[in-house]
C-alpha cells in the first residue's frame, strides 16, 4: 500500500506529463496545418510535371536510346530502398509502420534472391533498420537540422540516388513513406521512382512541337521528375508525422487524465482509511479508560 505522500507525488508527476503531452499535441496541430499547406501548394507543380512526363514517356518508351531513368537497366537484380521516416519519435506507430512495410519488402526481395540496399532518410528509420539489416545500409541522409523541408532538400536526395544509379549501384529504386489521408489515418506507401512508372501513360491529345527534341526534353526532365516525387513524398511524410503525433498525443493526454482520476480516488480512499483508523484508535483508547 503506497503511502499518502507517494500517491500525491505520483498524481503530481502524471499531471506534469499531461501538461507536456497536451502542449505537444497543440504544437503538432499547428505544425500539421503548415505541413498540409505546404503539401497543398506543391501539388500543382507535381501534377503538371506528371502530366507532361507521362505524355513524353508514352511517345518515347519505344525509342532505342530512351533514357535509362525511364526504361531501367534491363535487369532488376539490385534494389535500392529509400526509407523515409521522421527525425523524432513520440508519434504513435508512424515510424514503425513505414519500417514494417520496408522490412516485409526487404525480406521478400532477399527470398527472391535479389540484392537489397537501403538508404534511410530520417533518424528513426535508420535506428530501427540497423538492428536487422546493418550490412545492407548504404547511406543515410540527415534532415534533423532542416526546419522546413524545401525543394532543395529533395533535390539533394534525388541527386544522391541518381548518382548511385549512374554508376550502376542498383537497378530499381523504391521510396517508402507515409501518405497523409487524415489526422487519424496515414498510409504507408511504397512507390517506385527508378525506372519511372506512370499510372496511365497516355500520349498527348494535342500535337506539340518540341524544342529541343522530345528525347532531350525527356532526358532533361526525368531528374526533375525524380526530385519532384521525392519532394512530394517528403511533404506527405511531414504532414503524416504531425498528424500521427497529434493523435498519439491526444490519446496520451486522455490516458493521463484517466490515470489522474484513478489515482485521486485511491488517494482519497487511503486518506479516509487513515482517518477511520485514527478514530478507532482514539475511541478504543477512550473506552479502555
Amino acid at each position, binding site marked *: 500500500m503506497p503511502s499518502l505522500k507517494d500517491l500525491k507525488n505520483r498524481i503530481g508527476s502524471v499531471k506534469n506529463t499531461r501538461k507536456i503531452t497536451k502542449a505537444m499535441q497543440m504544437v503538432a496541430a499547428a505544425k500539421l496545418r503548415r505541413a498540409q499547406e505546404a503539401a497543398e501548394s*506543391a501539388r500543382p507543380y507535381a501534377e*503538371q510535371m506528371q502530366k507532361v512526363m507521362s505524355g513524353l514517356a508514352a511517345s518515347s518508351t519505344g525509342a532505342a536510346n530512351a533514357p535509362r531513368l525511364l526504361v531501367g537497366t534491363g535487369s532488376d537484380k539490385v534494389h535500392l530502398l529509400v526509407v523515409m521516416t521522421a527525425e523524432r519519435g513520440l508519434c504513435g506507430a508512424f515510424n514503425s509502420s513505414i519500417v514494417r512495410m520496408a522490412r516485409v519488402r526487404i525480406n521478400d526481395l532477399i527470398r527472391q534472391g535479389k540484392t537489397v540496399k537501403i538508404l534511410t532518410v530520417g533518424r528513426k528509420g535508420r535506428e530501427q533498420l540497423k538492428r536487422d539489416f546493418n550490412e545492407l545500409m548504404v547511406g543515410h541522409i540527415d534532415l534533423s537540422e532542416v526546419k522546413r523541408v524545401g525543394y532543395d532538400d529533395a533535390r539533394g536526395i534525388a541527386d544522391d540516388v541518381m548518382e548511385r544509379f549512374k554508376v550502376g549501384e542498383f537497378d530499381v529504386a523504391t521510396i517508402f513513406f507515409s501518405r497523409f489521408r487524415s489526422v487519424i489515418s496515414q498510409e504507408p506507401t511504397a512507390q517506385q521512382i527508378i525506372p519511372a512508372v506512370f499510372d496511365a501513360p497516355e500520349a498527348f491529345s*494535342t*500535337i*506539340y*512541337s518540341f*524544342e*529541343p527534341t522530345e528525347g532531350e526534353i525527356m532526358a532533361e*526532365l526525368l531528374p526533375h521528375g525524380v*526530385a519532384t516525387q521525392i519532394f512530394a513524398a517528403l511533404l506527405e511524410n511531414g504532414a503524416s508525422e504531425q498528424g500521427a503525433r497529434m493523435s498519439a498525443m491526444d490519446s496520451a493526454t486522455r490516458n493521463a487524465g484517466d490515470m489522474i482520476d484513478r489515482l485521486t480516488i485511491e488517494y482519497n480512499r487511503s486518506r479516509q482509511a487513515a482517518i477511520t483508523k485514527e478514530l478507532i484508535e482514539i475511541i478504543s483508547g477512550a473506552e479502555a479508560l
Partner: protein
Amino acid sequence: MADTLQFDLVAPERRVASERALQVVIPGFEGDLTAMPKHAPMITTLRPGVLEVFTEKGSQKYIVTGGFAEITSDSATVLAERSHAVEEVTKEMIEEMIAAARAAHLEAKAELVDASAKMLADMVAMGSRMGFEPKN
C-alpha cells in the same frame, strides 16, 4: 478586350503567378520566345533567364532556372525549379547561383562541360541583365 492567355508560373513549393496575360516572353532552350494567344502548341525546356509577362495592367519580370514551359493556343504554363519575382531577387542570390553553376562547371565530366559552360554563361547573363555585374 484584347485576346489573353492563361499564364501560370509554378515552382515546386508554390504557385508563383497565375493570371491572364497578353503575352509572355519565355527564355527557351534555344532562345527567347514569346507566347501569345493562338500560339502553336509546343513544349520547351528553359535556360536560366528572365521571364517577362505582359498583362493589361503592365508587365512583371521573373527569374527562372531549370524546368520547362508548355504552351498551347490559350495557355502558357511554366514549371521552373527556382522562380522569383525580380523585386525579390538580391545580388547575393544571383551570386550564389552563379557560384553553384561555376562549381558544377569545374567538376563537370567531359560530356557535360559544354552544357555546364552554357549554364554558367546563362546565369551570368541573367545576372547582368538584372544589373548585377558579377565579380570575377
